[in-house]
């Protein structure tokens, strides 16, 4: 369970997120919607520790993670652009978090295969990430984020900028994967259809 209490974020004396509180029950997905520039991505970055909060706490399963650095929070992130590591292959990207966690080579290989199957891209295992299409890159980014089994998965507009057909197929795959893995997820989107399709509940971020 993810619990955010009285969270505030400010840059240069400008409040971006103001005193926000919400809870995402274990295995469920909360969609956060709102227009561009309202602070949705900032909120996700604050939750995973990329940016500092000015006030408030973040708990996962009643453990306060507010003071932990990003790499110790156990929170996965899928960004708008995928952000795959350009010097690594598809498999190496997915394997990255498992290597960091010192998982054995055999277990890593089996987990990578399992995730590639899950996102229907097993044939691209050794492909250079520069050769992937937009939709393929998003699927690999999702597989990479899921690989270390994060306690919470943050999805930052994971379907934006895709053509209609890819958007539709990736949306149904994402719904399937979230259900299959029973991951607690926080989805940020400005698309109400996406929010209704993928999430159990929706929260509209208020303007500060």
């Amino acid at each position, binding site marked *: 369970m993810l619990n955010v209490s009285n969270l505030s974020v400010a840059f240069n004396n400008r409040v971006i997120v103001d005193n926000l509180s919400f809870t995402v029950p274990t295995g469920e997905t909360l969609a956060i919607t709102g227009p561009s520039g309202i602070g949705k991505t900032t909120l996700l970055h604050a939750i995973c520790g990329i940016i500092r909060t000015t006030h408030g706490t973040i708990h996962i399963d009643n453990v306060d993670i507010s003071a932990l650095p990003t*790499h110790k929070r156990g929170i*996965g992130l899928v*960004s708008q652009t995928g952000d795959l590591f350009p*010097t690594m292959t598809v498999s190496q990207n997915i394997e990255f*978090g498992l290597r960091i966690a010192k998982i054995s080579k055999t277990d890593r290989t089996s987990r990578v295969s399992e995730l590639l199957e899950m996102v229907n891209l097993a044939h691209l295992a050794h492909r250079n990430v520069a050769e992937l299409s937009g939709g393929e890159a998003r699927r690999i980014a999702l597989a*990479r984020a899921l690989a270390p089994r994060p306690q919470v998965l943050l999805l930052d507009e994971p379907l934006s900028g895709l053509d209609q057909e890819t958007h539709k197929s990736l949306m149904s795959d994402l719904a399937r994967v979230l259900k299959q893995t029973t991951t607690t997820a926080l989805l940020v989107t400005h698309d109400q259809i996406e929010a209704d399709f993928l999430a159990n509940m929706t929260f509209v971020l208020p303007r500060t």
Partner: protein
Amino acid sequence: MEKHHLVSKTKVILIAPVVFLSVFFVVPVANALLRFFRFSEFSNVLGNQSLRGVAWFSLWQAILSTLATLAIGLPVTWALSRFTFRGSRIARGILTAPFVLPAVVVAAGVLAISDSRGVAPIIWAHVVFNVSVILRIVGPRWTMVNLRLEHAAATLGARPSRTFTLVVLPQISDAVISAATLVFIYCFTSFGVIAILGGVSRRTLESEICTQAVRLGNTATATALAVVQAIIIGAVFFITRRSSRSQSTSLQVSSVQPLQTKPTHRATPLIITVTAIIIVASPLLATVYRSLVVNSQFSFSAWRTIFSGSLPALSVSPQSVITTSLVFAIAAALICVPLALLVAISSAPRALFSLPLIVSAATLGIGLIISFNRSPFSWRSERWFIPVIHAVIALPLVIRALEPAVKAIPASLRNASATLGASPFTTWHRVELPLLKPALLRATGLSMAVSLGEFGATSFLSRSGSTTLPIAIAQLLGRPGAATQQAGFALAALMVLVTVGVMSRA
């Protein structure tokens, strides 16, 4: 037809720079090698314990200098590429300025602080110079590494050190290798720094080539040493290019990703930057201090001397030296910048034009004194010859300064101009040239700075009437006497001010 037309155009454009470089660089260097290189002399050099010691010293001091430069340069490159803070632009300016400062000036600055000669001051001087090489080459690449990739690595559990080694380093390694190679070569062929800080016992191959050729008249030994030096430089280039190629296969993605917002207000980058500035700038400030203080007494006498007096240690007046240097710098820029522009706008391979970077100034110096000493080509004593050679040495750097600006002009502008009825010349003159103006000014500043600071080749050609500032500084600092030394520091301080002034206006 289109392709044929382009090829012909490229060939015509390149006639002037190719002829220029051939006459004043390729022919003299080839001439030196063909006339004086003997295998017997080569084996004599290799068998000579003293000369082997010189080669060994050149090598290890260059390796040590490169490592020290990376140790100072990489952290500050990280700080200035990844963070913005108050004064970060000024800090970048201070740290990059020494690259165009004359080696003898930097060496004079280190001498002003350490008051001793030897390995440690030599390495310090090399660091002062070359931190800017790391900043200039690695900095732009580091800026392009997407910050979001580092965030992604952190959300996957990687601590900052692992993120650096697994995600960042693979993306910047080819730039680090390129920069380290250049730093190594600059340190390996160091001449001005060794002339001032080496004392009698520390000599590099470069300084030994000059000693053998000019002082001892032993051109065959000097040529053999130049070949040994070229073989080592060639080997380093070969190894690092192979390594760099294997590293840069999948960097296209990072190069097109946008720059991220930089975090602000962090103490670590600030501390790193201030430390680097102290290491780099303190020798330069020390030249000013030593020019004003002698025997604990504050005095403007050295400055009065260089602007209106004379010095027994110099055969010409300091004012004449200053004028000569400025005239040479302007003349060199007038020759170099148009030629570099021609190369930059052509699509020709750059290998030929990079040669002056690889072949050391002393090797070129030998070629010049033996190739241009007979009628009708007895030019080695002519005053105009020195700025011409300065233009040769500045050419590869000035081409590199212009190229990005030329490439940045979108083809669509040319097409738009052509569809509006403009001829290729009109398009060039009215559309492209105005866009290149800032780059041309920078290139002119760079060319002037290279000319002002050139020491290696000039020391082969300089006569009493054509003494340049770096030659005069080396002469003054190499002689005893407080007043003479103080005048040397005053000239060095003047060069710091002139070079920084020229570069900041460019």
